[in-house]
Structure formats: structure tokens, C-alpha cells
């Protein structure tokens, strides 16, 4: 068994209460390991802590207690700069609200991580990534000139060009119609494998059924784990 790409142990996360009362626990002790190449889906009812788990695993949100290790490095011990560098070099994101910079063209958005890392920008790699998501002819367009599905595909092209070790996707099909959502899922499924893992939070149980493994969260705890389940089995576990 290879070392896990991500290793979560005893993870808790609390948010301050709105009125200044006791902190509100959202994650109550999560243990989870993601091996290289796995496509993992996280599902659960609203408020179960799915997105918070994703953000804690990616270092965008600090854990309250417990540890998150990515590529063997404990996120809690890294400075903000080191965390940013780890994200830049090893992590890709696909958010529901399309994480594209509005001032940059599709091509510039795809090349952004390389530019931030001061690596030489391989134009052919960027163009190839855009071609893979079917948007080569839209490379010069800014996000506002693209549809939701196209923006999401640009976000995936960025992931393809960056070739990160792990991709976090938060409701990547949440704002898309069925056709565009299916296209995005096909692309994400293709991203997983060859040592690269994809962790996807979703409400869409059919989307989750594409994953190698599905973790069902409930009240901030892992309620069930299912391996290559059908959508009906996931629905049963979530209820």
C-alpha cells in the first residue's frame, strides 16, 4: 500500500458563534487517508461539514485540532508563505463559483500557477490543456465572456496544465446544467489516476457515483465509507 497523499487524523474545526457564545463545532474528529490516484467523493446533508473538510484538507482553512498531512507535510506547521507555495506547486482547485481571475484571459488563467511559481510558461502545454477541455479557440476570452460550463472547464484546464498531485473540487457541477456538469465530471475523472488524486465535494449523488470511494459525512463525522458505490447506495447511506 503506497503512502497516502493526504492523511487526516483527529481533525476538528470549530467556528465562532455569531453572538459570541460557545464555538460551533463543524468537524468533530475526522480520520481519513487518500492514496495517490484515488478519486474520492465527499457527500452529506447541508451543514454536515463537507466543504469545511475540503478546505481544511487543502490548507485554505486551519484546523482547530488534529493534523492534516499533504505529501507528508503537516499543514499546521507550515507558515502562510510555505502553505501558498505547497498549494501553488502541488494542489489544484475547482470551485463551484469558478476560481478564475476576472482580469485575466482564459490562457492567462491557465498559465497563472506557472507564472506565480516563476517557472517558464510552456505555451504549448497551456494550449494543449485548453484544447483538452475544448476551449482552445476561447483562449483569449476573459471569464465574463465565457459561460459557466466554459469557466469551469478553464479551471480544469488550469489543473491539467499544472499537473498537481491533488485536485480539490468543491461542488464543481453545482452551478451547471446537466450537459455541462457531465462534461466537467468526465474531465475530472480523467484527471484522477497516474498518482494524482481528486477529492470532490458534491450534493449530486450521480456525480459522486463516478468516484472510486465515497465518504458520507453527517454532523461533522464520517458516517459511512462506500467503495465504487451506485448512486442508489449513496442515497441510502446519506438518508
Amino acid at each position: 500500500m503506497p503512502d497516502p497523499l493526504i492523511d487526516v487524523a483527529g481533525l476538528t474545526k470549530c467556528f465562532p458563534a455569531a453572538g459570541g457564545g460557545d464555538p460551533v463545532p463543524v468537524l468533530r474528529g475526522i480520520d481519513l487517508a487518500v492514496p495517490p490516484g484515488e478519486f474520492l467523493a465527499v457527500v452529506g446533508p447541508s451543514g454536515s461539514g463537507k466543504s469545511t473538510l475540503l478546505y481544511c484538507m487543502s490548507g485554505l482553512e486551519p484546523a482547530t485540532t488534529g493534523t492534516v498531512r499533504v505529501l507528508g507535510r503537516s499543514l499546521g506547521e507550515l507558515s502562510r508563505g510555505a502553505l501558498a507555495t505547497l498549494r501553488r506547486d502541488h494542489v489544484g482547485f475547482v470551485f463551484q463559483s469558478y476560481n478564475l481571475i476576472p482580469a485575466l484571459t482564459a490562457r492567462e488563467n491557465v498559465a497563472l500557477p506557472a507564472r506565480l511559481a516563476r517557472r517558464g510558461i510552456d505555451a504549448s502545454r497551456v494550449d494543449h490543456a485548453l484544447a483538452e477541455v475544448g476551449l482552445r479557440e476561447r483562449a483569449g476570452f476573459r471569464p465574463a465572456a465565457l459561460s459557466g460550463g466554459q469557466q469551469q472547464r478553464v479551471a480544469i484546464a488550469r489543473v491539467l496544465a499544472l499537473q498537481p498531485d491533488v485536485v480539490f473540487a468543491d461542488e464543481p457541477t453545482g452551478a451547471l446544467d446537466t450537459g455541462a456538469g457531465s462534461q466537467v465530471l468526465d474531465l475530472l475523472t480523467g484527471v484522477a489516476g497516474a498518482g494524482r488524486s481528486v477529492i470532490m465535494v458534491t450534493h449530486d449523488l450521480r456525480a459522486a457515483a463516478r468516484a472510486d470511494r465515497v465518504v458520507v459525512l453527517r454532523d461533522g463525522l464520517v458516517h459511512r465509507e462506500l467503495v465504487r458505490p451506485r448512486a442508489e447506495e449513496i442515497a441510502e447511506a446519506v438518508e
Partner: protein
Amino acid sequence: MITLVVAGSRIWLGALLIAAVTAAPATVVAAGFRTAVAVGGTTALSLYAVGGTITVFVTVTALIVLGSVARLTVTLQGRSYALWQLVGIRPGLVRLVVTAQLLLVAVAGAAIGCAATVPVLGVLFRSALDLERPLLGPVAAGSVIVFVAAVVLLGGGRSAGRAAHTPPIQTLREPELPERGMTAGRWVTAAATAAVLAAVLASLPGTADDRLGVPLMLLGPLAAGLLAALGPLVLTRLLRAWTALVPARVSVAWWLARETTAFHAGRSTATISPLMVAIALAGGLWSASGGSVTPATVILLLGGPLLLAVLGAATTIFMASRSRDHEHALLAAAGATPAVILGAAACEAIIYAGTALLLGLACVTVTAVAGALAAGHAPAFGLGAVLSVTGTGLLLTLAATVLPTAAALRQDVPRTLAAE
């Protein structure tokens, strides 16, 4: 309805501040004219002359600064206005509410600014004009409020119409609509300003040296007004041209700041135009007077407009800091380090100040060259004044971009991205 009218506090606070600061020099002018009417004689004549000059400075500055702030106030809230329409509020009502918001802020800001200036009128008139007991009656104070409200509505009225009539989905997709380019109104303003500028220039040859000061002083603000009217034609092109001097491969922060400032043309114009006016006014006054201007004269003639222009530039950045936070969170998610994000914020301020310096210098050059040709001496560019104002503007804009960015970097990225 009341809830709608008072929504968006950070943006409205900025607009309120600039309305109040606009009212301060307007109150000085109003008090000057009111006092002139009361005292009569030669004192009145000198008050009318000084008041007339300040009126030109204040009007040009207010139209550019307060007008930009009013436009930005509406533009930054485009998303909210679109959501209002989606819940069923008619476009006509949206326009009415936006106009009411602008009017409310203009009147409140003008009243605050007017009331805050009254206590210093005595000191100002005594030190600069050797006049005891300046007067400011209700009519003069009311005219200040009407002036501020008119400028705000002139600047923001068209944006209010645009907020109401742009399809909400288009606004939600792209909250900051692209600049509309040169509208008919801009062409008319530019042509009228150019005509006045040409008339002043034509009047210079043959004018006695001791009478050149006033027409020369008008050239700076007129040139600034012309460039502000031609803004959509000039600003982004100039910004892109000079910032290309630093190649993208040299600094990621500079590249990000360059792309952002060029893309958000409305935001950039709102910051650059006030700085340009400040530089043009200070350099123009210095150049027109051949460097013989006293500090008391500078404070009397330019104190208010300069304060308005420089504060206006910094305030527009503060007003837009929420959307800037969102962009910075996107960069952080993409792997930008805090140093790169802070660097981009600093470069943004440098780009604003640099572009304003180039435009302001163009205005000062008009005054300097025209003065030199008319008086037959070497041109005086007032570089000391130009650089002092640019430096002050740069410091304030740096503080306005970097400090909120540093604070925003302490926020968690998901929360910032979620807080749309």
C-alpha cells in the same frame, strides 16, 4: 425601502466623506461671495476675484473627483441592484432608489462638510485675506448643499440609469461593467473644455506680464478637465503603454497589478483622475506664478481642492477594497504567496500614481509652455510641487491598497470567496 437605501456601508461611507470634503472649499467660496455682498467696495472686488478663481478650481475638482466617486458608488453595487431586480423590483424603482441614495448621501455629506468648515472660516479669512468676521447665511450654505447634490447626481445619475436598465444576469456575470467608451456627453464636454482652453491660450499673446497669472492658472484645471473627459480614450492606453516598461517576466506582482488596473478601468479612472487633478492644480499654480506663490495663497486657492483630490483618490480604493479582497482570495487559492499579493497591491498604487503623474505633467506642461511663450521667459514646470503632490498621493494610495490587503490576508480564503 429604508433598508435598501442604507445598504452597502463601506461604499456609502466613502461617498459621504468625499461629499463632505467637497463641501468644505465650496463653503469657503460661498462665504467669500456672501461677505463680498455684505461689505462692498474694494474688499468685495478682491473677494470676487479670489472667489472666482477658487470656484474654477473647486468646480473642476468636484466634477472630476466627486463625479467619479458617485459613478463608482453605483458601479460597485451593481450586483446588489441586479439582485433587487431578480426579486421583482422594477427597473424604474431601482433607478429611483439609487438616485435617492445618492441624493441622501450628497445632502448629508454636504451638510456635515459645511458645518465642519464654519468654525475655521474666521481663521482662514483673517490669515489669507486680512478680513475679520466672514459671513455665511442660510442661502449661501444652501447653495453649497445644492452644488454638492448637483455634482453627485451629474456624476452618478447616468450610472443609476445603467444599473437599472442593464439585464441583471449580465451584471451578475460581470459586476463591473466595461467602460462605455466615449459617450456623446463626454465628446461634448471635451469639445467645450477644449474650446475654452483654446480661447484662454489665444488670449495670452500681448497680455501684460502682471496680468498673465489668472489666465495661466486656469490652464491646468482646464487641461485636467479635458483629459478627464477624454478618459476612456486616453487612460487605459496610457496605463498599458508605460507599465509595459516592466516586462511581465521581471515581476509577477507588477504583471498582476497591470492586468488588474487595466481591466478595472472604472475603478482605475476613479483613482487616477483625482490624483491627476491634484498634480495639475499644484504644478499649474506654481508654473503660472513663476514659483513666487506664498504658502498662504496655496492654502487659500488650492487647499480644499488638493485635499479633495488626494483624499478622493485614496477613498475610491477604500470603497473598492471588498472586490479587491475577493480577487486576492482567488489569487491565494491559485497559490500566490502573501508577498506576491502584497506586492501586487503596492504595484497597483504605483501604477495609479505613475499614470496620474504623466497626465498631470501633460497639464502642467500646457501652463509652462504657454506661460513661457507669452512672457518670453524659460518655462517653469513646478516640478517640486508636482513631485510633492505625487509623493503624497502615492503614500496615501499605498496605504489604501496595502493596509486593507494585509488585513484581508489574515482572513480565511473560503470565507472571503463566500462573502460575495
